[in-house]
């Protein structure tokens, strides 16, 4: 590996920029942080040969809020809402990972009903996250219409969230030890109704894009990343699965009640943008399957375990990770036995996946950079924390 390790190095030797565009071997173009296609405040420095990308360097940190530092000054419960602000389009997943990590550390077990409710909400959120991804990704590639379709359907999910916990985006739906709120009247029916509603809608997105020649041309063979590169770069989530690795933490190391669910892990073969698109669409369908099963099996019982008023986990450390919509979202929590975590480290999937941008766009064209940033499905709130 060391001999080809250099191919992963993304720092650019920035030469004197050529003003004339003529011998454009070293044309340096700055994209972002204020750019409509960088999904927030990502800044990418592109080194171009004409329109061909020779290398990129990401400049991140514009949204850095020091979440990990804040965690050291909040109690375990007080820190819970902060994690919602990292990946704000999949806030429920963030909360799930954090709550489960602290529960493990504290040696509490969430009651089964809580696990099922958690699962339902998390999968709903996965669908919402993928829908938002699809809309913005298609918009980046120039298809305007899917954005409105996906946002229409995502709205229904947000309505369920709002009804459940009062918030739409940064939900803070879960508490350490379970969920704070019992489900509202008609929750199950509403969720099932949503599943029935959204299934044909996913076909609708497919109608617009999957066989659309321009979409296929824009995405097939673009931003290819091999399985080997994926693993070397620690890329997880749909990106890894589209490269052919059938690895999903929900299957590999089941948490919540995923072990009792029957679902498949969709994979792709080529590791290109088109496969990632198909994988995410298939994941949305699988999520709907999980939701249906979970609603069906939703057990009765308490929804919140007996949790001490003051959480003081024993001295020790834990690494717990879940399959967030973007990939492996891990929490490494060190407890010193006090009420506040000694150290909370978040292993953000977007941050790690973003590293793969360079290798995915080398040799491709500028327009592909935008497609690849879109297909990586990054959320800058999580990249910068």
């Amino acid at each position: 590996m060391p001999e080809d390790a250099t191919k992963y190095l993304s720092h650019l030797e920035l030469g004197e920029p050529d003003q004339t565009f003529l011998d454009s071997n070293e044309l340096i173009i700055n994209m972002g942080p204020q750019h409509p296609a960088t999904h927030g405040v990502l800044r990418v420095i592109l080194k171009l040969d004409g329109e061909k990308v020779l290398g990129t360097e990401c400049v991140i940190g514009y949204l850095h809020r020091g979440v990990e530092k804040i965690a050291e000054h909040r109690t375990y419960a007080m820190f819970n809402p902060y994690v919602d602000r990292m990946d704000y389009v999949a806030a429920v997943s963030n909360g799930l990972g954090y709550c489960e990590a602290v529960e493990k550390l504290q040696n509490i077990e969430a009651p089964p009903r809580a696990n099922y409710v958690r699962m339902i909400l998390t999968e709903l959120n996965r669908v919402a996250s993928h829908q938002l991804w699809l809309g913005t990704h298609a918009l980046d590639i120039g298809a305007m219409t899917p954005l409105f379709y996906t946002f229409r359907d995502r709205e229904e999910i947000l309505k369920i969230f709002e009804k459940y916990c009062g918030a739409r985006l940064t939900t803070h739906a879960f508490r350490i030890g379970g969920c704070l709120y019992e489900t509202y009247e008609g929750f199950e029916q509403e969720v099932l109704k949503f599943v029935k509603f959204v299934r044909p809608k996913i076909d609708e997105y497919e109608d617009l894009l999957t066989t659309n020649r321009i979409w296929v041309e824009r995405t097939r063979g673009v931003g290819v990343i091999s399985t080997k590169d994926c693993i070397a770069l620690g890329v997880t989530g749909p990106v890894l699965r589209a490269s052919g690795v059938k690895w999903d933490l929900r299957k590999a190391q089941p948490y919540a009640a995923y072990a009792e669910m029957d679902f498949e892990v969709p994979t792709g073969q080529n590791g290109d943008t088109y496969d990632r698109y198909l994988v995410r669409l298939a994941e949305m369908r699988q999520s709907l399957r999980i939701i249906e099963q979970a609603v069906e099996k939703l057990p009765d019982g308490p929804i919140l375990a007996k949790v001490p008023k003051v959480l003081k986990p024993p001295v020790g450390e834990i690494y717990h990770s879940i399959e967030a919509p973007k990939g492996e979202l891990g929490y490494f929590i060190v407890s010193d036995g006090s009420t506040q975590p000694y150290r909370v480290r978040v292993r953000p999937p977007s941050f790690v996946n973003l590293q793969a941008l360079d290798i995915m766009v080398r040799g491709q064209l500028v327009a592909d950079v935008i497609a690849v940033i879109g297909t990586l499905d990054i959320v800058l709130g999580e990249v910068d924390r």
Partner: protein
Amino acid sequence: MPDFLTAYLQSNVTPGEAGSAFWALIYVLIVFAGISVAVMAMNWLERKALAHFQIRLGPMRVGPHGLLQPIADAIKLLTKEDIVPSAADKFVFWLAPLIILCASFTTYIVVPFGRAHAITDLNIGILFMLGVSSLSVLGVVMAGWASNSHYPLLGALRSSAQMVSYEIAMGLAVVSAVLMTSLNPSGTGTLSMIGIVQAQEAQQTWFVFKFFPLGFIALGVFAIAMVAETNRAPFDLPEAESELTAGFHTEYSGLRWSLFMLGEYAAMIAVSSIAVTLWLGGWLRPFPHWLAGQSWDLVFSLFPGLLFLGLAAIAFVGVGRMPKHPYFKIQTAGLAGFGAVLGLIGVVLFIPPVRDRVQDIFWFIAKVAVFMYLYIWYRATFPRYRFDQLMKVGWKVLLPVALGVLLLTAVAGILF
């Protein structure tokens, strides 16, 4: 004066041919005003249609169903601060939108809205149209260069490369249609726009159906190339907002920007007019030979009036469905007034002399409107091509296809 009018009404040639400078001037004014209004209407329609494609409502606030939105936009754009970047080349920056505007409006000199409804009939009409519309490339390049900024410059380079490459396929497709005009006993074709339509009349078929599928393929090539030529989706890379912000007019704002928009939409209508003239029989009504005869003529000549009455009916249905709250009183009255005006126009269009005079224009505009709708439809459906793919489509697909069609048309013309 009445003599003047009646003389005009009885003439059956364009004012340019008649050598009547006065009527030519009137026509110029009418056409330019009409195009400006059409651009505004197109703007409104595009926003509404696109919105409905995308399950939105579109403009709803200014006037009933946003009918006055283009006017509000125009006022906004006119009163906006006119920003010129300090490092820009002021003169060129000022000139570029004017060139694009002039290039797209000048083409209308030869567009035949009817046998007598064109400003003039140049015998190099189609050549003139292609030539003048290709001048807008200059405006694009100048705008990009004068802004003295990277994104506009890259956008301008892309855009001009695109326009120049698609012009070739477009020209070849046009030539194959022009070739069809020579299929008459005398063996000479014509480049005149009116002559082309008359050739279709004489050959009793629209060129789109001539030597099927050759004419159809040629129209297809032209229809694709014209979308690229006008920088519209899915070929709108110069304006790919996710890549180059707004392309060559990134630095423009206010009035100048609106001139670009005006020019773009006018060019869209102009190239659609070329397509309609060359392949879809221009001002000829549908089925001129299949459904021939006095009575069918009468039926088809009723269409314009019926259309306007239909629109008026829709407006009145809208009035009926308006909320009854006093807040909407003005809106309701406005919509009713609009409906009344539409109905009045419809009634006027039933008067026989007007009816006969106007139906050419009506059919022409109806056909152009189909292409306009296609533009909107493309925009709602397609993602954007990448630059190399766009060049590939232009050079490796459209150009060989156009050449092949041209060859086959020539062969077919000799054989049949």
